[in-house]
Structure formats: structure tokens, C-alpha cells
């Protein structure tokens, strides 16, 4: 908060560096839309940002109850930020349940904007509140702004001719308008978006929503609810380039298409809807003009099997799912592994085990990814660390699958899937080239038998696609004879093939970089993470350094095989701290692979992203040991 300027309305505008807002309401209140619009507008204003949608698994739990509360947290900043923030500065609560569920996370002294229309006795009862928090003193220590939003919207749209129900559906836009005013945001991008969304088909709805948005915006000036306004300036720390705002699952979908294109292949997605992976299937279904085929199959098993079939026939097969779906696909993964066909398996992790917490995030499927199959079944595993990284990791997964003729597991999670951030777009010519193992034929006629299981120097076999002259051959889940691929029960051959498959997967190490250490190259503590905890760990390390203490950080993309050079890095540190949203799965893997290294596990399994603050405290605790 450095300077103040005056607006037309003569209210001071204060500069502020980072703001965290949480919008919360009934799952039917349009909070996700409100949050997404604020995000887009902030992105266009040049802020760095990060978002965290938090919604119930039920589509519409009973209105007004705590179970039905849907939230959207957004951090926007003039600085480079890595997380949507531990604690919101502002809580917008559309009803008492939304207030009750979220108030504990609000920063001390934070701002509550409460829609008073929904604070009657019945509303309080539904929210399981014995007294009204607006009057019982429980909000002491917060700044509370009370607005009867329902009434204001009704007044603003009195002449709209819409039913009361439709009028009330505009209240999220009113709220958004008010927040735009408070943070000096231009409402025009949202107005344009509403025009496109309702467009010519429902012009009256477009007009009403725009009117509600403007009414909310103007309310800031007219009703003198606030002493001042804020502005968050453009972030100057973003690297130069062209940006767009994107969510994790769409970014991953684009990466899959790009990966296939870079390998000169066409993508086939076999999938089955499952939270929080479905939006990858939805995204890919809309990219048919990139030659993408998407098949929504009858179950998780059919989904992966169709992808395996497509890979056999020369497309790049992909299947997308979440934990329970991974469990179902297990046997088929073994088929892809045994037949040595390229396949990308995306697991958008959620809280487990079993059905678990469908809309919450977790990193507890790492063991399943690395070890969860019958027999000796090594498979490359990698994980995305940020929304933008999902794009790159998808390309990398395609590269490994295609160049090594192997199924590859790509782990992401609910936090990355639904979170959004500005994405610096890669230059097309900087994307990697991928060389597939497709054999064009030529074995016909010269008497030389085709060897479907002959291997190249990396250990990869040729990819002979049905329809190719002279290469007719049979593959299957039974053990293969070396070279010919015929069914073979010979004990020596089995052992040979088990090693051949493993050597091939381990050879992936030759083409993956050793992860970079940020901070000192040696020292007391190396904080080592994987997946979506990247932002929180980065923030935590910054906070520790601000206290004058030294800490180093390293983040893993490739989890199997582990990259080369880790032993040398670990040797330079007293201990390695591994924060994970599980009970210590990577920590256990590292202890097994690097027995001499002192590995501390910091595992939390709440279905929530790790917070920078808790990691900071853990680093400080370890440093004092």
C-alpha cells in the first residue's frame, strides 16, 4: 500500500500488492461464474493470479445448507504469485451457511461482504446457526459490510419484465459489479462476455445481467458502503511474452493434442466421465478439427481398452480418469505394457480411497501409479506442478509413450485441474519434436520375417500398424518371445523379457533432466516436492528466506524412473523435507531408492492443497533440529 489517488467519486484509491477474495454462496448462486469472471478481468488487467474453486460433489445440495456451499478463491497480484493464498482478505458471503463455512479462514481484520437478504430465522436454522452472526458479535475483529443484495437487484431490474426468479439469478452479477468497483476493475470484459453468452438468443437476459453488473458497480459510489477503493497494478514481474488465462484441465488437453501433432500422430481419447477429470474429455471433444477422436465409452475399462485398440491401429491412444477409474484400468494398463503400445493415462487425483472426496484434491495415488499392477510392470510416471506445466507435461508424456512404446501415467490433481493462472504461451518452434516408431512397411516380399519385438538402442520395439503391407503379426497379453513376439512360456525368455521391459523404462532417464535446485546448492534442508504443491512450497521457501534463514527447493516432474543425479544433490544437504498431500508416499520411495539420505516426510491429507504457512512452519521446525 504505497500511494493514494482520487477518483471521480472523490474516494481515495489505495494501491495494494496482492488481494485474496473468496466468493461463497449456494451452489446455485453462480459463485464459480463470478469467480471466473473476476479472474478473466484481472488477467486482462495484467495481474498475476491463481485460483481455487471449492465446490460440493452434489450438484445442488439443499439451498441454504452448509453442504451446499460453493466457493471460489482468487488471488490477484502486482507481484509474481504461486498460490491462491492461504487466507482470504475478503469473504463475499451470499448466505449464512457460506459465512459459517468460510469465516474461520478469513484473515484477522479481513472484510466480510454479507448479503443480508438471506439472514432470516429459517436461513440461520438451515445453516445450523443458533444466533445471527451479523448481530451476535461473532464477527468482531472483521470489517463487515451488509447489503441487501436481493432487494437491490429487484430494484435495479424492476422494469426488466423478467420473472422474480430470473431477476434473482442476476444477483451474482450485482455482487461482481460491486467487487469490480471496490478493486477498480473495468466491467467491460464481463459485459462483452455476457453479450456473447446470451447473445441473440436471449437478449433480455444479457441486458438484465449487464444492468445488474452496472448497478452493483454504481452501488459502490452511490451507497457509500466503503471508505475507499483499491487497485492492484499490473504485474511487472511476468516474463515477456503472449499470455492467456487457462485452467489446468484445458491446458492438459491442449498439451495432449500438441503432443500428438508433434509426433505426427492423431489423438484418440477413450474416456468415461469422472470428477475431476471430465473437463479434459469435454475439452478434447471440442477439438475435432485437430483430427481428435473422443469416445465416451461405457466404463473406465472400456475407455482404456478403446485407447489401446486405437494405439494398436496407429493413433496415439489416451485415457483420462481419476483414482477410482485408475483402479479399474489396472489390468488394461498391464496389457498396454505387455504389448508395448504407446498410451497416455492421465489421473486427475482426488481425495481417496474408494469414492473418497470427489471434488477435493490429494496426491495419494503415487504408490498406485508406480506400483499398482500385477507382475513386474514398470511404467513411466510424471506429475504436473502448475496449471501451465500441465501443458508441457502432457507433451512430455506423449513423447515418452511414443518414443519408448510404453504406457505412461501422468498425474495431476483437482487443484491444478480447476485452478487457473496466466499461461505464457510457448513459441511453436520451441516445442519438442517427437519421433514415433511407426514402421512404414517394406518387409513384404524379401523373405525377411518381420520381428515385432526387436528393439532399438533405447529398448523400444517397432510400431507396425494394421493395414501396413507385409507386417501382419499378433500381439497379446501372454508373455512374448524375444524378437518374434510369439507366445512363449520359456522361463529364461520370461526373465529376459521382464528385464527388457524394465531396462526400456529405466532408459527414459537418459532423456530427462536432473531437476534444478533453487536456492543454495548445498545446506541444511532441501525441500523436495512433486505435483501441485509447487506454489505453496515456493512461497514457504521465500518466507523462510525472508526470515534470514537458508533453505533450498527442488521440484520433481519425473517420478518414475527417478532422474539421474539425485544422489549427488541429496549428498549436499543434511536432510530432505518432502511435503505431500498424502501420508509420505514420495518420502517412502526416496528412502527405498536412497537409503543413506535423511528424509523427513510432511504429509497432510485433508483433501485441501497444502498451505504455504504450514510448510513454512515445518521448514523452520526442521531447521531448528
Amino acid at each position: 500500500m504505497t500511494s493514494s489517488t482520487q477518483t471521480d467519486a472523490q474516494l481515495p484509491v489505495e494501491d495494494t500488492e496482492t488481494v485474496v477474495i473468496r466468493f461463497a454462496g449456494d451452489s446455485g448462486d453462480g459463485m464459480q461464474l463470478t469467480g471466473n469472471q473476476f479472474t478473466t478481468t484481472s488477467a486482462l488487467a495484467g495481474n498475476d493470479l491463481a485460483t481455487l474453486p471449492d465446490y460440493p460433489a452434489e450438484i445442488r445440495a439443499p439451498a441454504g445448507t452448509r453442504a451446499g456451499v460453493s466457493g471460489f478463491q482468487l488471488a490477484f497480484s502486482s507481484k509474481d504469485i504461486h498460490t491462491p493464498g492461504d487466507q482470504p482478505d475478503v469473504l463475499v458471503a451470499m448466505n449464512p451457511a457460506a459465512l459459517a463455512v468460510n469465516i474461520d479462514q478469513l484473515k484477522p481484520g479481513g472484510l466480510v461482504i454479507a448479503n443480508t437478504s438471506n439472514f432470516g430465522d429459517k436461513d440461520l436454522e438451515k445453516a445450523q446457526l443458533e444466533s445471527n452472526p451479523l448481530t451476535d458479535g461473532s464477527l468482531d475483529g472483521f470489517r463487515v459490510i451488509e447489503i441487501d443484495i436481493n432487494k437491490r437487484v429487484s430494484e435495479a431490474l424492476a422494469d426488466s419484465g423478467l420473472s422474480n426468479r430470473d431477476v434473482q439469478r442476476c444477483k451474482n452479477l450485482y455482487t461482481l459489479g460491486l467487487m469490480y468497483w471496490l478493486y477498480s476493475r473495468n466491467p467491460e470484459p464481463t459485459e462483452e462476455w455476457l453479450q456473447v453468452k446470451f447473445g441473440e438468443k436471449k437478449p433480455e437476459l444479457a441486458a438484465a445481467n449487464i444492468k445488474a453488473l452496472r448497478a452493483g458497480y454504481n452501488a459502490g459510489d452511490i451507497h457509500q458502503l466503503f471508505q475507499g477503493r483499491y487497485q492492484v497494478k499490473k504485474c511487472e514481474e511476468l516474463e515477456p511474452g503472449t499470455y492467456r488465462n487457462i485452467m489446468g484441465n484445458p491446458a492438459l488437453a491442449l498439451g495432449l493434442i500438441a503432443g500428438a501433432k508433434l509426433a505426427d500422430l492423431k489423438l484418440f481419447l477413450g474416456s468415461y466421465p469422472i470428477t475431476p477429470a471430465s473437463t479434459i474429455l469435454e475439452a478434447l471433444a471440442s477439438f475435432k478439427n485437430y483430427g481428435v477422436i473422443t469416445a465416451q465409452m461405457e466404463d473406465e475399462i472400456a475407455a482404456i481398452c478403446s485407447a489401446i485398440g486405437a494405439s494398436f491401429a496407429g493413433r496415439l491412444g489416451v485415457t483420462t480418469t481419476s483414482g477410482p477409474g485408475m483402479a479399474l484400468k489396472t489390468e488394461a494398463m498391464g496389457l498396454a505394457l505387455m504389448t508395448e503400445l504407446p498410451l497416455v493415462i492421465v489421473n486427475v487425483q482426488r481425495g481417496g480411497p474408494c469414492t473418497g472426496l470427489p471434488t477435493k484434491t490429494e496426491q495419494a495415488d503415487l504408490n498406485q501409479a508406480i506400483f499398482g499392477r500385477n507382475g513386474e510392470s514398470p511404467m513411466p510416471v510424471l506429475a504436473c506442478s502448475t496449471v501451465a506445466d500441465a501443458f508441457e507435461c502432457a507433451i512430455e508424456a506423449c513423447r515418452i509413450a511414443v518414443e519408448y512404446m510404453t504406457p505412461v501415467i501422468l498425474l495431476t490433481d483437482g487443484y491444478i485441474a480447476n485452478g487457473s493462472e496466466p499461461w505464457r504461451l510457448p513459441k511453436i518452434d520451441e516445442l519438442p519434436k517427437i519421433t514415433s516408431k511407426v514402421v512404414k512397411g517394406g518387409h513384404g516380399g524379401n523373405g525377411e520375417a518381420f520381428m515385432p519385438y526387436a528393439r532399438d538402442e533405447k529398448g523400444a520395439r517397432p510400431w507396425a500398424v494394421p493395414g501396413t503391407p507385409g507386417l501382419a503379426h499378433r500381439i497379446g497379453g501372454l508373455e512374448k518371445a524375444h524378437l518374434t513376439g510369439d507366445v512363449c512360456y520359456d522361463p529364461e525368455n520370461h526373465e529376459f523379457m521382464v528385464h527388457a521391459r524394465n531396462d526400456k523404462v529405466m532408459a527414459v532417464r537418459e532423456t530427462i533432466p536432473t531437476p534444478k535446485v533453487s536456492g543454495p546448492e548445498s545446506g541444511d534442508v532441501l525441500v523436495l516436492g512433486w505435483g501441485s504443491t509447487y506454489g505453496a512450497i515456493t512461497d514457504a521457501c521465500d518466507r523462510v528466506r525472508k526470515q534470514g534463514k537458508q533453505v533450498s527447493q527442488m521440484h520433481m516432474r519425473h517420478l518414475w524412473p527417478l532422474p539421474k543425479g539425485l544422489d549427488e544433490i541429496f549428498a549436499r544437504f543434511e536432510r530432505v523435507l518432502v511435503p505431500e498431500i498424502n501420508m509420505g508416499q514420495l518420502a517412502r520411495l526416496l528412502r527405498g531408492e536412497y537409503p543413506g539420505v535423511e528424509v523427513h516426510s510432511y504429509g497432510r491429507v485433508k483433501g485441501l492443497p497444502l498451505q504455504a504457512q504450514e510448510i513454512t512452519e515445518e521448514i523452520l521446525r526442521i531447521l531448528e533440529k
Partner: protein
Amino acid sequence: MAEKTLTKKDFKPDQDVKWCPGCGDYAILNAVQAACADLGYDRDNVVFVSGIGCSSRFPYYMNTYGFHTIHGRAPAVATGVIAANPDLAMWIVTGDGDALSIGGNHLAHILRRNPNVNILLFNNEIYGLTKGQYSPTSPEGTRTKTSPMGSVDHPFNPLSFALGCNATFVARTVDTHMKHMATILKAAAAHEGTSFVEIYQNCVIFNDGAFDEHTDKKVRDERTIDLEPGQPMIYGKERDKGLKVDGFQVVRCAPEEASIWDPTVQSAAPAFQMSTLDHDPEMPNPLGIFRAVKSETFDRAINDQVDAAVEKKGDGTLEDLIYTGELWEVS
């Protein structure tokens, strides 16, 4: 490879066939190899996909592309294969356990989607490869090691199942009836869409003679009827018996009163009716073509959508893919 016409021998690979001596599968393999030659197939364009079980070893015995997949999942794998390349001649080989027990779900869904594949279901009413347990088509009361007092499960009728899924081509033939099998295989191959063929297949080890009641040469003419498209439903060694449709019933009648069999009617009801005659001791068990109707195929439809999207929006480039939406520059 396509210049010379291939013979049955060209479809035999150098692998030893490892079914039990006397198994009905040998006859089917022979018939399929012959059909491939008769159909003028280019073997590089043919794919056999199977699941798990005795019948599912079939792809290893065909000198074409082949994929021996996992238990019950051949229809799902095949759906991916044919979607990726609709120009292939695609055959699925499966058994009663593979298709109707562990793979029941996938069978139902491939039939409703109607991709251009031919499904051969070898029905021997028993689990062979696991050594003789009752299957989902074993008659109630079948005594096996897992049902020592007789099975209590009601069996599936494979054809009723397929017709219930709105299968567009449904037929039945018998492993011992080579000529009939050849006709049915070629009709199945000619059908655009999913062709479902149940083949009564004798398991000499665990369920020998399961179909003798209908298919033994001594009784076959009297106890079966061949449903020939456009022909009156007449059977018997002397061609002296007929069937006619009477309301919602099929009844026996004099040959001159026999109804004309038409598998191309849109409704699956008449075919379903015929499929239920298999255990009626008073009636002949129908073989032949139960249903053959035209319907859009999954593989063509899904590829047509891609073509339509390309035509409408242009062939997407990496630049189009990434540099789209609301962009802004940071300098």
C-alpha cells in the same frame, strides 16, 4: 500383397494350433480361413481381436493382424481399432464366458454403437480353459465342479441378448455344419455394422454333445430350421413342416402356410420371438439370419464428425490451438 488372390492356406500362420483334439474350434478356424480367402481379403487389412478363453486364442492361428486382449474386453479394444481405421476388416472372436459374463457390459455397448465389426461368439455352454465350470449360457441345473448340485443361475440366450441391444445383424450357425457356417460368415462380413454370430461349438472335454439334441446329423433336419431371408419358413427332412406368425406367437403349420422370413424388418421383435424357440421341445431351433437391418456405423459417424469439423473450422494447427482466446502481451 493385394495383387494376388490369397487362398485359405495363406491365412494359416506357422504356429501350432493348440486346441484339444476334436474341439469344435478347429472347424470354425477352417471355415473362417476359407471365408477370408473367398471374401478376397488382403491379409494386411484384416484384424482379429479376442478376449480370454479357448476361443480367444483364435488370432494366433490367423496369418493376419491380431490382438489377444484381456478377459471380456475385446469389444472395447476393437471399437478403438475400427474408430482409428474404419477401412480394416475387423473380427472379434469370443466365447460365452468372455462375451456374456465378464464382458457382458462391453458386448451390450458395442452392439448398440454398431461399429463395422464381426463378432463370432463360440458358445459351448461351459468354461473350458479353466477346466469345466458352468457358464452364463449353461442350462439351469448343469452339474460342474462349481455347481455339484446343479447350477441355479438362469442362462442367457445370446441371440435374445444381442437383439435386446438392438444389434443390426444377428445370426446363428453350428460348428459341424460347414456349408451353413460359410454362408453365415460371408453374410456377416458383408453387413455394414456389427454382425453378431452365435456358433454352437462343441467342447469335447467338458460339455460333449451339448447341442446334439438339435444339431446331431440324425435329428438336425427335424429339430432345426434355417432362417433364409425371403424364403418361407419350412423345415424337416421332407420339407413337410412350416412355421407361421400368428399374432404374437410363432406356431407350426403346413409348409404351404409358412410365413416368409424377413430379417430386414426394422423391429427386432420377430427375430426375438424366433430366438426364444431354442428350448421349446415342440419347435425347431432356428439357425441362419435372424436380423439384418441397415443403420449408421459408429466408426464412420465418429470419423465423419472429424471431417465435418475440419471442413467447417479448417485443419487445426499448433498455432491455432495455443494462440487463441483472450490473449495479452507482456513486454
